[in-house]
């Protein structure tokens, strides 16, 4: 089994348990680099897959919460190198497959080949690159593939049917269904026609579909879970961390 295949498996396992797959997102090293390892472990106890955000100076697709966490993490010296170095000693102690969310430029600066090998070494099974559309992704995909890591594609309610098919078949791990046409952290709640959209995406996707953007409450997870295999919880979790609350407790009540 390739590392990226572990992701879908973890989601499906949750579904088999009668649960919606839960994919918590945290900005790595936020709010405090010193507690990164322990809070990652706590979160990975509850999440089926954990998404680690690599901080970047220009998080153009993100809302205020993730921007704030990203800038703070950079201030605190968090880099891609640092994150991998933190993950090294955790090998074996984290069961949940890890994925990384990073804008393209930090990955470019790191180097694709090194990225893929460090990913394999540290249990990072796939990448989400929000500013990398499919058309520009061949080069990095090839590099990741060589080490068994994958690139997770995103689709949105505005994605036309043809393109949806293309992205679904190109994705690795799961297919990321953006629930709203907006940025992360919107507080406007989930859109009314969500069910139809997620059903459509799920019908097309050979992989489990995880829905993300705007998921904050157990009820959100629930309604998403009726039409998708998993739910990604980002800004809401980062806010929990920001307030110094217990992330595991927050996540548990979402399950």
């Amino acid at each position, binding site marked *: 089994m390739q590392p990226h295949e572990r992701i879908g498996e973890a989601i499906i396992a949750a579904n088999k348990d009668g649960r919606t797959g839960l994919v918590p997102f945290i900005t790595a090293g936020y709010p405090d680099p010193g507690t990164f390892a322990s809070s990652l472990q706590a979160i990975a106890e509850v999440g089926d897959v954990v998404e680690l955000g690599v901080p970047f100076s220009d998080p*153009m697709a993100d809302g205020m919460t993730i921007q704030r966490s990203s800038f703070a993490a950079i201030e605190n010296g968090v880099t891609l*190198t640092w994150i991998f170095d933190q993950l090294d000693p955790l090998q074996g102690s984290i069961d949940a497959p890890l994925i990384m969310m990073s804008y393209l430029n930090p990955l470019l*600066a790191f180097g694709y080949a090194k990225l893929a090998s460090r990913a394999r070494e540290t249990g990072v099974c796939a990448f989400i690159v*929000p500013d990398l*559309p499919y058309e520009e992704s061949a080069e990095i995909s090839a590099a990741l593939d060589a080490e068994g890591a994958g690139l997770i594609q995103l689709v949105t309610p505005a994605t036309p049917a043809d393109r949806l098919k293309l992205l679904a078949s190109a994705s690795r791990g799961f297919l990321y269904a953006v629930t709203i046409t907006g*940025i992360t952290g919107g507080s406007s709640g989930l859109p009314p026609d969500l069910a139809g959209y997620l059903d459509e995406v799920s019908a097309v996707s050979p992989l489990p579909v995880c829905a993300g953007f705007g998921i904050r409450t157990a009820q959100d997870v629930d309604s998403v879970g009726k039409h998708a295999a998993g739910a990604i919880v980002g800004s809401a979790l980062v806010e929990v961390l920001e307030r110094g609350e217990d992330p595991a407790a927050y996540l548990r009540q979402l399950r």
Partner: protein
Amino acid sequence: MKAVLDADEASELLRASIAGELPDERGRFGPFGGRYIPETLVPAFELLERGIREYLPSDEFQQEYRTQLRDWVGRPTALTFAARLSERWGTKVWLKREDLAHTGAHKINNAIGQALLARKLGARRVIAETGAGQHGVASAAACARVGLPCRVYMGVVDMQRQAPNVDRMHRLGAEVFPVESGDKTLRAAIDEALREWVSDPAGIYYLLGSAVGAHPYPYLVRELQSVIGTEARQQMQDLAGGLPDVAFACVGGGSNAIGLFYPLLGDSDIELIGVEAGGTGDGLGQNAATLATGTPGVLQGCYSIILQDEHGNIQETHSISAGLDYSGVGPEHALLQALGRVSYVTASDDEALEALQELCETEGILTALETAHAYAAAKRWSRDNPGKRILIGNSGRGDKDMPTLARYAARTNANAAA
């Protein structure tokens, strides 16, 4: 993505560039360019690209555009022989007067073209970002002219240093949205505008202000700004008796420079020199000398040369001129540098201030601080090239810079007194 070209590739790319074959289908200028955007924006960009393909070359659009340029923008702008400056410098200096264009800079050429396009595409409203405020004012004016509401994203730092332009945007009926995030300057304003665009890709037209960003913007902006170089080339022949030996333009995102240079690329005898902001020094964060000191990377939608640290985080910049204060540069400039067709140099804050004052006093032209960088470099060049013919892209007027100039004058006086 590699930024180093072998000789064959380079000569083929130069040919293609001159022949107008770039960017290619995927929005590439050789290795540079492309489209690095969130999936949420893909439909918006495809709509835009289809619109450009359909309308931009059409006679109807071109005629509408040319009419606005002539009757509203005031084109052709003058070509001025700077007699007294020429005498001082020992060269023959000609100025392409974009400062005389409506709203006071070359930015309007692009803004009115895109505003017309926005109307054609059926947008309900327009958003734009601005640094120096010139593009914001130009967008506000262009949107008023075509009858579309306009919101301009502007970093709060820029709002402060370009206060007169904020007032002008308000007067022209635009909303100015203060951007508090990121570096609070142009880069953050672009991010904020992109975030807004995502919320309604079909209803919003994003009117980008320089030859940067994801494809098709670098192409679109170049096409709309090329009127500068096309006019200047003709005017040099008519008024100066021949083409220049060298052309200078300041480079922020690179729109006025590409507008001036593009129609001159094929004139291989003309040396082309872009001038970036040297700020206060060579250190990281002290300047905005992207091409002079940057490395390849992806910023705000395209692969180009950018200012970044070893981790790929974008470097904050400094320039006395808000319009040059940007960590990226248009991908076509990155290619032209790689090909050696255009060279890129810097001028410091102090050199720009001095050049601005010299032009004021010799020619009665108060140029923009951005533009002043081009003069500073041209003056240096003159020392080694006596008698040569220089064309300078006078990209805008300096009225907007009065508060900054006052601040610097006060500083200088204080130093002198101390």
